[in-house]
């Protein structure tokens, strides 16, 4: 059966091939697209970003991460507003209450509303994460961009400096800086960025080093484009993919560091809340059975880290031009 089918197919093919020139005219249908139209690209032309977005959209896990993040950000903005209680007000008659209709996430040992505190903490944690990542990005792009573009002696001096800074143990240095500067929101961001930009600088430099030798940059140079414009128009847009992927790694690591430091008592100070600090408070509460005091901050730290991680993985795949079809 299979063999016969194959034979039939072959004879059919052979038939059409030999008789193509002898086919009657009515079998030929005029091609509709003529003239200029014939040159048109049938498939809609997609920019790099549209293409990446199409690929990201198909990645269910990454989209879940994106949606979760958007919800978390919205809750961080509106959570403290829609909450029935203040994040810092202590109600001594309402200590350690489990979640209920009045206190959606329960209350902590000082009678503060956990719902309001959780979203207030979300603001701080997300703010620290985004700020630290953006400052890293800013310094890293400028430093790495100059180092990679200039090349030669400038590059090797700048990279020696980076090599030495890269050896510094990140969290130890951050702890040291916080001990000296005192804990607080601005000092924690400063401490996280003092050594944090080095990774971004290395990545940007590597990318720029590669791209600056491509033909289109050479073409730009031949037209006499100014250096700054080449960096802005040719180099940066093409390193954007890598930079964004790096950002999705920097943000959760900054959020983790903040939680870690607050957990050590070096982060945000009371009466303000951050997830790390709440987890630290909840640590003693859980042994007495007040599980919600640890559960909510711990759950939302983990959820945020998860969302950034899967989104980062998805973006890495989506922005990789090698995977373009």
């Amino acid at each position: 059966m299979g063999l016969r089918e194959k034979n039939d197919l072959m004879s059919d093919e052979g038939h059409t091939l030999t008789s193509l020139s002898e086919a009657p005219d009515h079998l030929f249908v005029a091609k509709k697209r003529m003239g200029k139209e014939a040159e048109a690209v049938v498939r809609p032309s997609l920019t790099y970003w549209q293409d990446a977005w199409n690929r990201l959209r198909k990645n269910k896990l990454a989209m879940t991460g994106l949606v979760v993040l958007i919800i978390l950000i919205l809750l961080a903005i509106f959570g403290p507003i829609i909450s029935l209680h203040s994040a810092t007000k202590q109600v001594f008659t309402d200590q350690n209450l489990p979640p209920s209709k009045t206190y959606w996430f329960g209350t902590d040992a000082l009678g503060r509303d956990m719902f309001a505190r959780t979203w207030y903490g979300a603001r701080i944690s997300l703010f620290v994460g985004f700020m630290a990542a953006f400052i890293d990005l800013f310094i890293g792009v400028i430093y790495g961009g100059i180092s990679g573009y200039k090349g030669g002696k400038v590059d090797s001096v700048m990279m020696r400096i980076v090599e030495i800074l890269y050896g510094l143990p990140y969290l130890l240095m951050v702890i040291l800086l916080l001990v000296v500067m005192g804990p607080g929101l601005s000092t924690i961001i400063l401490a996280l960025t003092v050594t944090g930009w080095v990774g971004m600088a290395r990545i940007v430099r590597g990318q720029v080093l590669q791209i600056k030798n491509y033909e289109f940059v050479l073409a730009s140079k031949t037209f006499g484009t100014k250096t700054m414009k080449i960096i802005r128009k040719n180099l940066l847009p093409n390193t954007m993919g890598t930079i964004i992927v790096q950002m999705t790694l920097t943000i959760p690591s900054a959020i983790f560091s903040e939680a870690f430091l607050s957990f050590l008592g070096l982060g945000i100070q009371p009466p303000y809340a951050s997830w790390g600090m709440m987890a630290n408070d909840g640590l003693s509460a859980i042994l007495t059975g007040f599980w919600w005091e640890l559960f909510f901050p711990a759950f939302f730290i983990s959820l945020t880290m998860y969302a950034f991680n899967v989104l980062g993985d998805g973006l890495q795949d989506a922005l990789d031009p090698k995977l373009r079809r």
Partner: protein
Amino acid sequence: MVKYILRRFVAMIVTLWLIVTLTFFLMHLAPGSPFNQERNTSASVQENLMEHYQLNKPIAIQYVHYLNNILHFDFGESITLPGQTVNDLLSRGFPVSFELGMLALLVAVISGIILGVLAALKHNGIIDYIAMTIAVIGISVPNFIMATLLIQELAVNWAIFPTATWATPMHAVLPTVALATGPMAIIARLTRSSMLEVLTQDYIRTAKAKGLSPIKIIVKHALRNALLPVVTLLGTLTAGILTGSFVIEKIFAIPGMGKYFVDSINSRDYFVIMGTTVFYSGFLIIMLFLVDIAYGVLDPRIKLHKKEG
């Protein structure tokens, strides 16, 4: 190769010097004298204390003195625990921390590699999804939360493992697991992706065509090459485990260096903070250096004397 090692060695020495200097001057920038908020001491006692810790000398002399001490592995004296030197604390705490750290590293590397290899071999299969789910959870859940969960479930609710102190092997299980989960997840993901890449290489097909047993192909040909990227991570992972052990030791009440360090931060014991930071940084930087050299020796494709980029 020799040139590369030499260059890395010089960079390492400069980094070490930078850390000692940074730590020293940052600590001297810290507000207030270390003895101000302590007890109500008279002026002469204050002076004696300053004399004892050599804080009344010009800062340049103090600096040279400190550098000299560090060179002789003398990390100074504690302020809040009079009579105790940082070396005392280190000799008591570091072996415990080292043991915990090495255990965690070992568990992380072995289980991470196994998970990664299984996931790669059963690519897109159930094992792959399970392994990668474990990995994503391991990366997402911070170690201090993992530690608390483990205590709550396995030590309090089920009473399977004892906690607090560092005595029997059973005491080591929970802190080791809490400390190893994060690094394990990172290793598993990296092993999986590099294993997937290696498995498509021509030499694997050649090995298959030659009729080698699958186990031999995986262990001898694939794994050996897939593990190279993992080696580069070892330095950073050690750093992560080391800083992670600060909170893990605090949570599990393990009398290691991490606990002393956290205590010294809380009591603002500047000399202990300084000494520990310098000691740990030095340890990590030497680790990073060794990992770099090991990588160069392991990977014949890399020509170390080649200029970067």
